[in-house]
C-alpha cells in the first residue's frame, strides 16, 4: 500500500508537468485547430533560458546566492518572459500568415519551427548538443524530504511541483472563467467567425492564447529541469509528445481535459514502470503512444471532448 501511495505521488508529480504542457496544446488547438508541434520545444527553451539566466546572474555556484527564493523568482521571471515572447513571435511570424490556408501548411510550418528550435539550440554558440546539468539546488532544499508518512516519502520538489501546478491551474481557471479576455478566448475557441462578428479582436486573443500557453510550458520546463536536473536541446521531444497524448486523452480543446489527461497519463506511466518489473521500464516511452492509439480508436474526442458532427 505504501508503495502504491508512493507511486501515486510520483505519478501526480510528473503528471502535473505533463498537464502544464498539455494545457498549452489544448488551448492553441481550441482557438486555431492547429497542433503546435513546437510547443514541446518551448518547454525546452524554458528550461534552457532558466539555466542560462542562472549562469548570467551568477547563481550557479549556489552557495554564493544570498537570497535563494529571490534568485529563483528572478530566474523564473526571465524564463517565463522569454518563452511568452517566443510564443508570441512564433505565432506572429509563422502561423498568422497561414491562417486562411489549408491546415497542412500550418502543420508543416509547426514542424519547421520545432526543428528550428531544436537545431538552433544544438548550435554551439547557443547551447550545444551535450546535456548540461541544472542546479537543482536553486530551489532551496529541492532534494530534501519534506515529510514522510508511513513508508511514503514526499520530497520537497514533488510538493513544489504539485503546489505550483495547483496555483497555476487556479490562476488559469480564474483567467479563463472570470475575466473578459477569458470569455473572449472561450468565444473564439467555440466559433471563430462569430466571435469576430461580435467585436472580439481575434488576432489579439490568439496571441494571448499563445503567450499563456508558452508561459505555462516554460514553468513546466523549469520544474522538469529541477526534478530531472539535466538540460539538453532535445529534451522537449518526448515530454512534448506525451503532453500531446495527454491533451488528446482529455479531449483536445478542453482545458479540464488537458489537466485530467496529464495527471492520468503520468499515473499510468509511473504505475506501469513500477508494477511491470524490468519489461515495464523498457516500454515506458511506448506507453504514451499505446494510450494514444487506444484513445483514438475507442473515443477520439477524448474524455471531456465534444463530439463534432460532420456536416455535409
Amino acid at each position: 500500500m505504501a508503495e502504491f501511495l508512493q507511486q501515486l505521488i510520483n505519478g501526480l508529480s510528473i503528471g502535473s508537468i505533463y498537464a502544464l504542457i498539455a494545457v498549452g496544446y489544448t488551448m492553441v488547438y481550441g482557438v486555431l485547430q492547429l497542433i503546435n508541434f513546437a510547443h514541446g520545444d518551448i518547454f525546452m527553451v524554458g528550461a534552457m533560458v532558466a539555466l542560462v539566466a542562472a549562469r548570467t546572474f551568477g547563481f550557479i555556484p549556489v552557495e554564493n546566492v544570498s537570497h535563494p527564493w529571490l534568485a529563483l523568482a528572478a530566474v523564473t521571471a526571465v524564463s517565463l518572459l522569454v518563452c511568452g515572447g517566443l510564443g508570441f513571435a512564433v505565432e506572429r511570424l509563422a502561423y498568422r500568415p497561414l491562417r486562411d490556408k489549408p491546415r497542412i501548411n500550418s502543420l508543416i510550418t509547426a514542424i519547421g519551427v520545432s526543428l528550428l528550435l531544436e537545431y538552433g539550440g544544438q548550435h554551439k554558440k547557443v547551447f550545444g548538443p551535450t546535456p548540461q546539468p541544472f542546479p537543482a539546488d536553486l530551489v532551496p532544499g529541492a532534494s530534501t524530504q519534506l515529510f514522510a508518512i508511513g513508508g511514503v516519502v514526499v520530497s520537497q520538489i514533488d510538493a513544489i511541483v504539485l503546489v505550483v501546478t495547483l496555483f497555476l491551474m487556479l490562476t488559469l481557471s480564474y483567467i479563463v472563467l472570470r475575466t473578459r479576455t477569458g470569455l473572449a478566448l472561450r468565444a473564439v475557441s467555440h466559433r471563430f467567425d462569430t466571435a469576430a462578428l461580435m467585436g472580439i479582436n481575434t488576432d489579439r486573443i490568439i496571441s494571448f492564447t499563445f503567450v499563456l500557453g508558452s508561459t505555462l510550458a516554460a514553468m513546466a520546463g523549469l520544474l522538469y529541469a529541477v526534478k530531472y536536473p539535466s538540460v539538453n536541446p532535445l529534451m522537449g521531444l518526448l515530454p512534448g509528445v506525451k503532453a500531446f497524448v495527454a491533451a488528446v486523452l482529455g479531449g483536445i480543446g478542453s482545458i479540464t481535459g488537458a489537466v485530467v489527461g496529464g495527471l492520468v497519463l503520468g499515473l499510468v506511466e509511473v504505475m506501469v514502470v513500477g508494477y511491470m518489473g524490468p519489461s515495464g521500464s523498457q516500454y515506458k516511452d511506448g506507453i504514451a503512444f499505446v494510450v494514444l492509439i487506444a484513445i483514438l480508436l475507442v473515443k477520439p474526442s477524448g474524455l471531456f471532448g465534444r463530439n463534432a458532427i460532420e456536416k455535409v
Partner: protein
Amino acid sequence: MPSKKSDILPHADALPPAPLPALPVLSDKSGWGQALLANWSIPVVLLLVVAIGYLLEKANIKSYYQRILILIGFNIILAVSLQLINGFSGQFSLGHAGFMAVGAYAAAYPAISYSARLTNPLGVLLYLVSVLLVIGIAAGALWGILFLIRRTRLAHPALPGILLLMLAAWLLVDWAATARSDTPPWWAVWSRGVAALRGLFGWLTSHGQPGARTLSLKIPEIIRQPLCMLVLLAGGGCSAAVAGLVVGLPTLRLRGDYLAIATLGLAEIIRIAIQNSEPLGGALGLTGIPKATTFAWLYGAAFLTTIAVWRLAYSPRGRAIVAVRDNEIAAASVGIDTTRHKVLAFTIGAFFAGIAGALYALHERSVTPSSFGVQRSIEIVVMVTLGGLGSISGAILAAVVLTILPEALRPIEAYRMIIYSLLLIGMMLVRPQGLLGGRELWPRRWRPNRSPQPVDRPRVTEVTR
C-alpha cells in the same frame, strides 16, 4: 462502314498515309499479350536503368559522390511512395520511417541468419513464408475475437466492452504477476498462445532450412544471388505492406492532425517494439548484413516504384483515391469504397517503403532502430511537401534537391540544419503548394489521354490489315 477514308475526311487523300508500325497485329490475341506489348517501353527503360547502374558501379566514382547518388536513390523511392499516401490519398502520414524499418528488418534478419552470402534464396523464401503463416494465424485469431465481439454485441451493446475490460484487467494482473515471479501462472493462456506461435515458427524454419539449402544449390550459381535479392526485397516489401495494413485500418476515421499524430505514434510503437526485441538485436540492431545493393538494384527499384505509383495514381483506381481525398462523403455517395481505397494507398505506399528499407539494410550492412525515427519520417514528409502534394515528378525533384542541399551546405555544417528548417518555414510561407504545385513535369502526351487532343502514338488495336 465508309468505303473510303475520303468519305469521312474530305482531305484524307492529301494526308500522308498513316505510318504502319512494324509490329504484328495483336487485336485478336489475348489481352495480356496486348498489354505487354503496349507497355514495351517499361522493360526497355528498366534494362537501360539497370545497365547504366551497372556501368556507374564499375566507373569507380569518388565514394563521396557515390554516397550522394545512393542517398538520392533511397529518397526517391521513399518520397514517391509517401506521395501516394500523403499527396494522392490525402492522408497526412508521419510514420513512413516505421514501414521502412519493418522492411529493413524483414530483409536483414533472413539475410544474416539464413543466407550469409545471399546464396540461399529458397531458405529466405521459406523463412518469409513461415512468417506469413504465423502472421496469418495471429490475424485469424484476431478476426475470430472481433467476430465474437460482434456476436456478443448482438446480445447486449455494452457486453463486449465489459468483457474486454475484464480481459484487459486479467492480462495486466497476469503480466504484473509474471514480472514478479519466475514461474508463469497456470492461467496465462495468452502467453501460451504466443509461445505456441513462436514454437510453430521455429519448427517450420528449422525443419525446412536444410532442405531449402540443398535445393538452393541446385539453382544455377549466376542467378542465385539476384534471386535471393529479389526474394529479400519482395519479403521486405510485403512485411511493410502488412504493417501498412495494420496502420491504415484503425486510422480510417481519423483526419488531418489526428491522423498525423496517430501515424507518428504507430511508427514509434513499431520502432520501440523492434528496440525491445532481443532476436532483432535490441537497441544495437543487426550487423553483418551482406552488402548487395548496387546502383543497378537501387535505381531499378526507384524506376519501378515511380512507374507503379504513376500507373496507380493516373488510373481509374487512382482517380477514386483522389476523389476520396477531395471529398470523402461525396465519393462515398457516388459508390466509391472509401475504406478500400484509403487502405490501398497505405498498403502500396508502405510496400515501396519496405523495399527502400530492405535496400537500405543491404547497403548499410547494419540496421539500428534509431535510424528509423521521427526525424527520417519528417525528412521524407518535407520532400513530398516541397515537391508539391500530388505530383510524382515533384517528389522526385524534391528528393534530389533535398539530398544534395544538406551536402552542399556541409561547409557551414553548424548552420546546416538551421538553414534547413528556415527553408522549410520559408517555403510554407512563400509557396505552400510546393515547387511544382501538384502538376507533373513530363510532357503531356505521355499522360493518359484526358484532354480531347488525339494521341499521336499509334495504338496497336487501330492497325488495319
